[in-house]
């Protein structure tokens, strides 16, 4: 049995026992998707539901997104980044720690369907996977692709693949990936300001302002998002590029020091914008200025809620 099947089995067993013992009223995990390369959120409420739970490298949503405002005890299937989001939500009072059970999945990185589509241009009718590979097929073709070649950007670099804060791990800790060295951002900084502005303006030119990135984000649980504010409604609702840019910049600021690089935003984006580019600029700043990474302890205080008298800020004259 491959690692994927083992994890799936363990998730199902754990979920069943949690539901049977009443330790959880619902187990939030993944089921097989209705289209290829998709694993969908699934809410198991009875022991028999649990056989639909799976683990797969298509499990791209961050299920911590479903935790805020939930009452009752809940168990969450969580990879490293998701578990960190859940920890963040506990520290931000979105769910009581006592109501949360984390079924941790050591993650080896998830597959980016866009990369698969780019590699295999023909319409894909079916996809299957093993630990190391995926096999896609369509009208008159079947191709095997190494997962390592089609990992999501955020999974290629990942400093916390295994959810060490989880209540239980469903397998041995995953081999560490290299942490994000922000090499591309550093390279970008070597360019001229106007080139950089062009780059970021081009990045979001297709944005529909559907806010799927926001809605898929476990950090975006605000009852009223700033883009939806009225009185003053200071952000236009049209597709004006500056309004769109403002949305992305402020969302990034709101996620700063809280983002766990789960990539759910990019997964959700229907027009394939590399939304996280903005977040990463700030991830880098948060790490460099305050040596902070979110979701690693239950006691952590987000960096914008604390200060040090000697915090660096040389640009302030």
């Amino acid at each position: 049995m491959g690692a994927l099947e083992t994890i799936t089995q363990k998730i199902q067993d754990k979920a069943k026992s949690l539901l049977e013992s009443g330790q959880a009223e619902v187990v939030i995990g993944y089921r097989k998707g209705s289209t290829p390369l998709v694993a969908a959120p699934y809410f198991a409420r009875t022991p028999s539901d649990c056989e639909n739970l799976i683990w797969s490298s298509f499990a791209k949503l961050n299920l911590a997104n479903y935790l805020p405002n939930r009452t009752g005890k809940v168990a969450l299937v969580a990879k490293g980044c998701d578990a960190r989001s859940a920890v963040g939500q506990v520290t931000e009072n979105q769910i009581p720690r006592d109501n949360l059970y984390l079924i941790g999945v050591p993650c080896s990185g998830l597959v980016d369907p866009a990369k698969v589509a780019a590699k295999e241009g023909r319409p894909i009718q079916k996809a299957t996977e093993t630990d190391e590979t995926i096999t896609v097929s369509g009208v008159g073709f079947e191709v095997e692709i190494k997962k390592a070649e089609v990992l999501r950007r955020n999974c290629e670099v990942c400093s916390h693949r295994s959810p060490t804060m989880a209540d239980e791990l469903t397998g041995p800790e995953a081999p560490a990936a290299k942490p994000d060295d922000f090499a591309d951002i550093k390279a970008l900084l070597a360019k001229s300001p106007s080139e950089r502005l062009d780059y970021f303006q081009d990045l979001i030119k297709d944005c529909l302002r559907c806010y799927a990135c926001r809605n898929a984000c476990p950090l975006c649980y605000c009852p009223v998002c700033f883009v939806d504010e009225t009185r003053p409604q200071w952000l236009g609702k049209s597709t004006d590029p500056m309004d769109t840019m403002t949305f992305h910049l402020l969302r990034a600021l709101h996620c700063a020091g809280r983002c766990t690089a789960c990539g759910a935003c990019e997964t959700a984006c229907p027009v394939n914008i590399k939304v996280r580019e903005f977040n990463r600029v700030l991830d880098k700043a948060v790490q460099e200025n305050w040596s902070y990474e979110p979701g690693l302890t239950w006691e952590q205080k987000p960096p914008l809620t604390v200060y040090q008298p000697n915090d660096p800020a040389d640009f302030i004259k």
Partner: protein
Amino acid sequence: MTEYIVKEDALTAFFQAIANGRRLLAPQGQGENCRLEVATGPVSLDYGNTHLSPKATFFPQTEKILAYHKKADQPKYNQYQDLGDHAEPTVIFGIRPCDAKGLAISNKVFQNDRFTDPYWKGKYESALKIGLACLNPSPQCFCAAMGGSPFGEMGLDVLAYPKEKGLGLKPLTPAGEELVKAASLPSADLASEIKDLEKKAIEAQGPLDTYQIINERKIMELYKADHWSATAEPCLGCGVCTFFCPTCHCFDIQDETSEAGGVRMRNWDTCMSPLFTVHGSGHNPRPSKTERVRQRFMHKLKYIPIKQDGVRGCTGCGRCVVMCPANIDIRTVAATMAQASA
């Protein structure tokens, strides 16, 4: 009417002839990135469907409709002025039948015996629409189940289909006939070929027989069914389904102002957002995603059919199925609606 053939080597001339000085929109780019755009490069004939539905051509995401000047030295300051319908003569090639049907459904919303929307009307009526039938439907396609067909004709002036690296053409309206005639094409009788191809394509989609049950069940029975909160539970409320849906047509009117003046515009809105129904008082008749998700599926599968003589509000294009980050599949939902008890 007769059918016509465009040979591979005559394609370029054909597109030139149908454009005839008008704006020509046609599929540009391959695979996921295929879009209906002003044709500047080669026209794609082999694509699943365009990434976005063609509705933005007639109903742009942001459309400025009125404006006024604040400065007293400007003519008619402090008075709203119409900014026009932004229509221009257009030929669209490559609309999939599901999308053409979607436009036809929206057309009844924007133009009917009670009301005419000038901005839609101008653009819709100044465009000639050539559809491109589907030979190999994608896994998410289910137009047939929604009463359509990969070779559906609703809302089109001409139906085309790929034929030996060229095209087969079937004019559907006098305007379509005129358009094709202008291209001086060889005619042919393609009726039986079309029938065969259509049958094959429908079979490839697999059956979905739940719609009839939904049609027969009473509104309140469907509405009060107990599955809605479970159906809605995975929903993120993002509204991607509505942005990509060829029949979603809701909008919000907004004013924007500056020192110089103001503009009134309408923007796409989405019923998946709580803001869609929130009242000035703060009251929201659809307070949670359960009500909102129910609204969307009831609208597509029950309310529109009632208003539009049985034509379903979903055309089976499958975009929402693929785009939904939570994989809420309207086929599954339809099946649930058909079965669920109240």
